[in-house]
């Protein structure tokens, strides 16, 4: 048996009770972060308790949508057949101004990503159910 079932399909995020509000926010064009009402810190990936103080009293709050590229890479190998026509493509890690980091792509930029570059979020609607965050260079 060769090949992996479903290998030509778009890899989709696994939705869980902890992260569902994040993905709902993306569909609505809003970057939502689980935030502790006790100690005030936001965290990623979304979890059921605050990893800093262990409180369950979390609130989902909209982030400003801006941040700084903390690291990046460019993928040259075709790992996912569905991404073959995108290769080479970049992957960035953004430190949001609120603190947590998010993995995404840099779009609307001819230049490769740079550590320290300021970016802002946008949402790409992939299908009826899935919108993914991406980032564009922040002007100025």
């Amino acid at each position, binding site marked *: 048996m060769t090949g992996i*079932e479903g290998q030509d399909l778009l890899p989709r995020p696994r939705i869980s009770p902890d992260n569902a509000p994040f993905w709902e926010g993306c569909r609505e064009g809003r970057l939502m972060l689980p935030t502790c009402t006790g100690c005030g810190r936001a965290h990623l990936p979304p979890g059921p308790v605050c990893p800093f103080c262990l409180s369950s009293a979390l609130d989902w709050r909209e982030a400003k949508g801006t941040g700084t590229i903390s690291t990046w890479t460019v993928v040259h190998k075709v790992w996912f057949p569905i991404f073959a026509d995108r290769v080479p493509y970049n992957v960035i890690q953004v430190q949001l101004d609120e603190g947590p980091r998010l993995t995404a792509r840099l779009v609307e930029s001819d230049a490769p990503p740079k550590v320290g570059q300021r970016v802002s979020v946008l949402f790409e609607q992939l299908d009826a159910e899935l919108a993914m965050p991406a980032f564009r260079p922040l002007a100025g």
Partner: protein
Amino acid sequence: MTEITAKPLPRLDGPEAPFWAGLREGEIRVQHCVACGTPRFPASRFCPECHSDRAEWRAVEPRGEVESHCTFHKCYFPGFVGDMPYTVIQVRLDCGLRFFSNIADGGRPATGQRVAAVFEPATADVVLLKFAPEDGA
């Protein structure tokens, strides 16, 4: 997401490749240790009896006895929907080797029953090893 309606198939290009080739030719071919002669299945690099790493593939007598069975009433594989309920048997060949299998044509097995191999084509490349009661019993 595509629906899986076919039954699961074995991997043909792994260490058991000569076994699957044997079934296509109507034989149960297994490794025999060159040093001590003990047959073994599944394939392994070393003989579990004497640890020799020299082996050759030879056919064994395709006859044996049903040692156990179980019948699936819960359908785990969509490809088996048409066979529900179906029975899996454990057969011990006269040479001592065990295989999990089914009774060809879905007959009811009994522990201790004598059976003989049936080489059942599943696809263009795959022949499965099934068993039928000896003497048409």
